[in-house]
């Protein structure tokens, strides 16, 4: 997928069984990106969907490249990743790109797209990573999360706090990076599950990179694949395993 076509920003969207909402997300993203003063590429990573996600994404990609001057500012490509896990899909997408700035966000657009120019500005200002955060001053939940979910999140943040310093929210699905910094971290990263973000940020910080948190107005979207008990326990275990030592 190496395409040295002079893009400034690669946007990775990992997608697992997202054929219903992905088309609208892609249209909205392309619309937004074409209004930005940089050239970007959207890279959809189909993480082994069974519902025609890749086909739906390819249709939008064809629409975009068919539009007059469409692919000039924004290109859309679709690749696959059969390894399960959002971390695996994000890694595949980031490593496949070539733009100097790269990042990912979730297909549900829970983080507003307006966050993107802020993140790009932070990266151009020298940050290695600019990540959306639901837990810094200025952030808000558009709808309040249930108590159990908040409690679980609190435990997770406490556990991961020792690994990633000064970052209140490691788990928000919106993160952008300087390519050299994220590549250096990714090639060493071994987790692909819920601790993926924690390990990634931990490695970037350990390498001397600055992680900047951007407050966002977060919307909880239906259709989350996060299962509070099963995945909650799995994510605690993954983070505890990281405490055992990141090599």
């Amino acid at each position, binding site marked *: *997928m190496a395409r040295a076509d002079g893009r400034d920003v690669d946007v990775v969207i990992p997608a697992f*069984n997202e054929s219903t909402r992905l088309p609208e997300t892609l*249209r909205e993203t*392309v*619309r937004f990106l*074409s209004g930005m003063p940089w050239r970007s590429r959207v890279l959809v990573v*189909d*993480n*082994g*969907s*069974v*519902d*025609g996600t*890749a*086909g739906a994404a*390819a*249709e939008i990609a*064809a*629409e*975009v490249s*068919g*539009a*007059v001057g*469409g692919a000039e500012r924004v290109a859309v490509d*679709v*690749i*696959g*990743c*059969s*390894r*399960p896990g959002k971390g695996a899909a994000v890694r*595949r997408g980031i490593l496949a790109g070539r733009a100097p700035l790269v990042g990912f966000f979730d297909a549900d657009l829970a983080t507003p797209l307006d966050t993107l120019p802020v993140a790009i500005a932070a990266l151009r200002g020298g940050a290695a990573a600019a990540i959306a955060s639901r837990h810094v001053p200025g952030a808000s939940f558009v709808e309040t999360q249930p108590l159990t979910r908040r409690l679980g999140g609190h435990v997770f943040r406490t556990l991961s706090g020792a690994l990633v310093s000064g970052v209140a929210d490691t788990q928000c699905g919106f993160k952008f990076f300087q390519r050299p910094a994220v590549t250096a971290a990714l090639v060493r990263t071994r987790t692909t599950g819920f601790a993926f973000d924690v390990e990634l940020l931990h490695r970037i910080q350990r390498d001397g990179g600055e992680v900047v948190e951007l407050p966002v107005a977060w919307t909880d979207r239906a259709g989350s694949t996060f299962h509070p008990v099963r995945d909650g326990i799995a994510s605690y275990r993954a983070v505890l395993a990281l405490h055992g030592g990141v090599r």
Partner: protein
Amino acid sequence: MTPPRSLAVVPTTDPDPRPQLAAAPQGPTTLSRLAGKRVVVLNWRDVHHPQAGGAEMYMHRIAVRWAQAGAKVVWLTAAVPGRPAREVVDGVTVVRAGGALSVYARTAFVLRRMVGAFDYLVDCQNGIPFFAPLFVDRAKPVVQVVHHIHQEQFATRFGPVMAAVGRFLEGPVSRAVYRGRPVVAVSPSTREGVRRRLRMRGPIHVVPNGLDATPPIRAPRDPDPTIAVVSRLVPHKRVDLLLGQLVPVAQAVPRLRVDIVGSGPERARLEGLAAELGLADVVTFHGFQPDHARDALLERAWLTTSTSDAEGWGLSIMEAAAHGVPTAALDVPGVRDSVVPGRTGWLVPRVADFGQALVGALHELSDDVRARELTEACQAWARSFGWDRSAELLAGVLLGAAPQAEQDGRGARSDISVVADVARPRNWNPASWTLRPTDQVRTHGDRISLLLTGCDDTDAKVVLRRLGVTDARVRLADRFDLLVGPAGIPDAVRADRSGSAAIVEEAG
């Protein structure tokens, strides 16, 4: 081996044209690897059962081809009054015992005694599978065939308790019994249901239905705008939804005629509904019609419709397409696999928009040139589905189901597939490439197309590099790739993208 007998009278189906074996296949086909193998097919009915339907026809068409390729096929099924307990039908040995429910227990008993007496087993699921893995040796390849998901249908046929039992058997029990064994789904929609509703964990392969024969030329269509619907009149076909949408269509389209061919328990209610809606002059209920009369009505039509709530595969849509008739359909599982939107018909997301879509479709079809274009696309689409290919594909799944046949380093989520297009190497022959039996290869001129299943684009490049290919163009497969394979959608059907660019322009 007993010589194949001709197929006796089977209601509602055409006789199968003999598979053409005139041209010897180049190199060993997947099918030929079944020669001399013993294959057991489990199906609650056989093709001579009075209630045999599309599922039985599917397996029969395929089994006949396996038998012709030299496999010894034994089909275990329920007893049929007036037919012997054992007979050879088109080269397939049919063994009958038990009734609609006891056939399951009897088959289990037979399988127990058959230890080692077969090489491959096909377990045809009709809501409830035979749970063959419980009764055969662990190492025996067992492939489950699923036409559609019955989870909701149980409730329409049984009381709440039996329906719950049915859902439990089709879902959690099957999942535990079949574990990682391969499943064959007849369409991408069914595959999605098997993965997401039944939550089966093994690889799921798409082996589509064939179509018996494409009639060569259409009779001239009716000068008046005509819709023909061939359907059993049962609740889940939802012909009532069509009637409800017809009132504004009849107002907007003068001289509209709607022919409904088929019978069933809903007929009286539907006729009453048509009268209440004031559509008695527009809609004609023809009842059950013999094949030639049904085809004659279909051939005169401009359009057919589907308002079904879900299908495993849109058989009647494909039969209409074979006659050159496009379809306007509600966008539901199974149906969306059978219609190529904008090329062989229209897919409508919402019921409330269906009438308007019909008006639009009939208007588009009033242009003779456009109508001819759609007719050609429909027939080309129908010709993409042949039983020979289905027999090949299912044979590939059997061969690939052998326990030693896995492990070549491909990734974990098996639903991802890629289409690769590569230059044909000099002196290439199919045997020189080691691929999985489920991989599909097609040569055309100096190019080779491949459909590699259970494989993402990165893995595919690794696989191809190992075969000495470095110039591969690789992309992820979509639902139509899974259906028609590496041959691709025929040119006459290929979607014209020029019309869709507007969405982005307007957005930008």
